[in-house]
């Protein structure tokens, strides 16, 4: 009797202890499987640095083979990362740093560059059989010559430039100023942190600005789509538009244009005309247009970090607010990249191709590991409307506010913007593409608090187009 009791208790205790150990196994599984990536990538984990000393990190290369970042072996056997162009590619390429972590392409394609891609890491010891001494090279769509022209053209002003191919979405140049030198990231880290002008911010994809008049191209597209006005209709432009009892909208400089049709209105960038168009469309159609152009969608591409567009709450817009949206002002905030995509709608027959920086990833022996193939992102508008707006934009450069971007021998289409903001001086914008008959590049220039778009931004776009096409 007693004997049985003891055995029963022993079984209970054995069962209890086995349960404890099983719980432990579940917990260990959690650490080694679920929690694993987090622990591996923790900046305090010295393993990343230890393995990076064994494998030569791959280079980051532009479309014509120029190295934008490469690793060099020191005398002590360790590798140093070199960025030969210093500040010029800092926001695109980023930096690789054991202490601060990685940014830009260095972060996005880290597993390929470091040769420790996650797929083979899962194979445990077996991966050692295919052990390699070099990481993969990452080839970008960037054209380093064009990037340098753009970088120099911005001078010492703050702002951003994006150049992309509207036919496939390949980003050819992406400049953000002020910049920093990734070679000196350790030494200058405190200065960078303390600098008030956000040196690390990639203004091209993360800078949020009021678009100003460049957005009128989109309002024009909405007008054409909804058939609110014909191309022959004219608008009275006395220099102001009385929207309500307590709100009147003025032309820039309060100029009275008399009667304007749509083409002329875009050429002179008439605020009253586009405010009127926005009112005719109504807030629902204007909101639909923003959606149609993808402003509410994420671009599913990890090549860069993008700030989401700040759109007004369309349900609560007063007529005055709607007029402001119609001329790209109000609470609207958009990144230069999104303006480049909007421009590419008119340059590429109504279609936005997915923007990307990656061209291909290849091994040291030249074999291709991964290749980017062009992908359609959105079909925004009809070919016909895109063609009309393209012609109108060509007229802007030929006869309107964009004359400073005119180039003899190349048909340039464009639109200027002078965006009011919280500070005294407006932001200078220029969006454009060339050659207009068969566009090969879209150019977006923004200069923070630079002044008039036609005067300040258009000549910079001109320099870039000349350099690319001549």
């Amino acid at each position: 009797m007693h004997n049985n009791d003891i055995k029963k208790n022993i079984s209970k205790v054995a069962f209890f202890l086995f349960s404890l150990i099983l719980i432990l196994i579940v917990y260990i599984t959690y650490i080694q499987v679920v929690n694993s990536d987090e622990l591996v990538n923790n900046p305090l984990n010295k393993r990343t640095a230890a393995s990076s000393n064994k494998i030569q990190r791959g280079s980051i290369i532009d479309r014509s083979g120029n190295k934008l970042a490469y690793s060099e072996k020191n005398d002590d056997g360790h590798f140093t990362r070199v960025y030969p162009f210093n500040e010029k590619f800092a926001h695109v390429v980023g930096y690789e740093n054991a202490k601060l972590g990685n940014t830009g392409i260095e972060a996005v394609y880290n597993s390929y560059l470091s040769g420790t891609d996650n797929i083979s890491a899962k194979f445990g010891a077996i991966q050692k059989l295919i052990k390699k001494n070099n990481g993969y090279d990452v080839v970008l769509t960037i054209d380093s010559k064009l990037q340098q022209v753009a970088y120099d053209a911005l001078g010492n002003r703050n702002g951003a430039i994006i150049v992309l191919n509207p036919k496939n979405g390949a980003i050819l140049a992406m400049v953000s100023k002020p910049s920093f030198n990734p070679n000196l990231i350790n030494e200058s880290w405190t200065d960078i942190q303390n600098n008030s002008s956000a040196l690390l911010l990639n203004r091209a994809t993360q800078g949020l600005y009021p678009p100003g008049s460049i957005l009128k191209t989109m309002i024009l597209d909405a007008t054409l789509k909804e058939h609110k006005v014909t191309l022959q209709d004219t608008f009275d432009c006395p220099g102001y538009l009385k929207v309500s009892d307590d709100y009147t909208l003025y032309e820039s400089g309060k100029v009275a244009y008399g009667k304007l049709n749509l083409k002329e209105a875009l050429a002179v960038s008439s605020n009253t005309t586009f405010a009127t168009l926005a009112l005719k469309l109504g807030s629902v159609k204007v909101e639909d247009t923003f959606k149609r152009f993808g402003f509410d969608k994420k671009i599913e591409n990890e090549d860069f970090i993008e700030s989401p567009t700040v759109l007004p709450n369309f349900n609560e817009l007063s007529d005055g607010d709607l007029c402001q949206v119609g001329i790209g002002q109000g609470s609207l905030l958009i990144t230069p990249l999104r303006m480049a995509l909007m421009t590419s709608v008119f340059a590429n027959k109504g279609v936005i191709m997915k923007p990307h920086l990656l061209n291909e990833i290849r091994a040291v022996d030249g074999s291709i590991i991964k290749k980017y193939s062009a992908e359609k992102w959105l079909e925004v508008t009809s070919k016909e409307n895109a063609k009309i707006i393209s012609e109108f934009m060509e007229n802007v450069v030929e006869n309107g506010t964009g004359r400073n971007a005119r180039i003899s021998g190349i048909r340039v289409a464009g639109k200027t913007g002078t965006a009011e903001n919280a500070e005294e001086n407006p932001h200078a914008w220029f969006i454009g593409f060339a050659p207009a008959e068969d566009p090969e590049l879209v150019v977006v220039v923004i200069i923070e608090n630079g002044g008039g778009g036609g005067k300040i931004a258009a000549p910079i776009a001109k320099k870039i187009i000349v350099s690319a096409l001549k």
Partner: protein
Amino acid sequence: MNSLEKKEELLIILACLIFLIGISIVQLQNLGNLNFTVLLQELGLVVIYFITHKVLRRYYPNGDPYLLPLTISLISIGLTMIYRLKPILFLQQLKWTFIGIFVFTLSIYFFRKLNIFANYKYIIGLIGVCLLLSSIIFGTDIGGHRSWVIIGAFRFQPSEFAKIFIVIFLAAYLIEHKVVLGLHTNKLGPLIMPSFRFIAPLIAIWGLAMMMFLLQRDLGSALLFFCIAVLMTYMANNNLSYLCIASLFFFIGSFVSYLFFDHVKVRIDIWRNPWMDPNGQAYQIIQSLFAMGSGKILGTGITYGHPEFIPEVHTDFIFAAIAEELGLLGAVAVILIYMLIIYRGFKISLMCENEIDALIAAGISASIALQIFTIIAGVTKFLPLTGITLPFLSYGGSSMITSFIMIGLLFALSEKRNNIA
């Protein structure tokens, strides 16, 4: 050759293959070729294994055929890891293994006469207590553990050996008094208060454990002793009240020490949030977590990881090194081997005719289970870290020999069972 012998032989061959292949891999990786001297040493150990196997089967043909092969598997993994982590210590650990095996065989011989030992339970208990006290009084700090006692050229950890004495004493004491005093109980509310004589050893061991805990800072051993005493009392008496009272004691003890003793507070705080001080107090546990995370499912492969980032990796943290280089599969495999040993231990206990024997076998199995649970939970941050060794894997002689004695005890009890049957 009977079937048990065949079974054991086959399993030992497999266990030895782990050893031979493991060491060869490390050599080819680190030296580029095979070291002949080390190979001879390896073969020496393998020969000893087979001699032991033959001797066991000759004199105790009905003993459990799984205990020795399982033990050898663990030692194979342990020696391989030590050779990979601290090659200088390999030879010394090999020596401990030789001595361990010898002591194992001797202990089987002695424990066959366990009935006689039981008659001297008070002497055994006294020896156990003296061993514990000696480490409390003469304890010297080596490598962060203050549980070492140095006598001349010898240094050892008496608390490791004390385990066995305490288990035997408790088993004999509890069973004997169970019959006499089992029915004398006083009620106190919902709890049935046990008679004082029944829980006297429990209180004594609790007191000793608290002393070890507070004076020596040996949290691991203290916890181990206390839990063994509680579980054995429960197994002998089947009264949940003991567990409740013990838990109460445990929580009061832990709470008071958390409030009044800094080193306890530090340990608990590290466990609660190691990321507060990842490069200071919590360095070791954080490095251990990094190692385990880097191992993923299949491990980095032996010699390909970086377990050397963990301080004291060859003793208390050897499990983290296994988890990194052999992955989740290796780590779970090691735990499963322990579970099989513990399972055999409890099975042997349940087959025993004699209650004292049954309780001893159960006590030993429970102590192995508690020990591996405590240390593995500690290095994985499941529980606060307590410095105790992982039997047969961690570097160290006291641990190796004690673990072998415990396996010897289980083996002796398994053999007896069959003789009577």
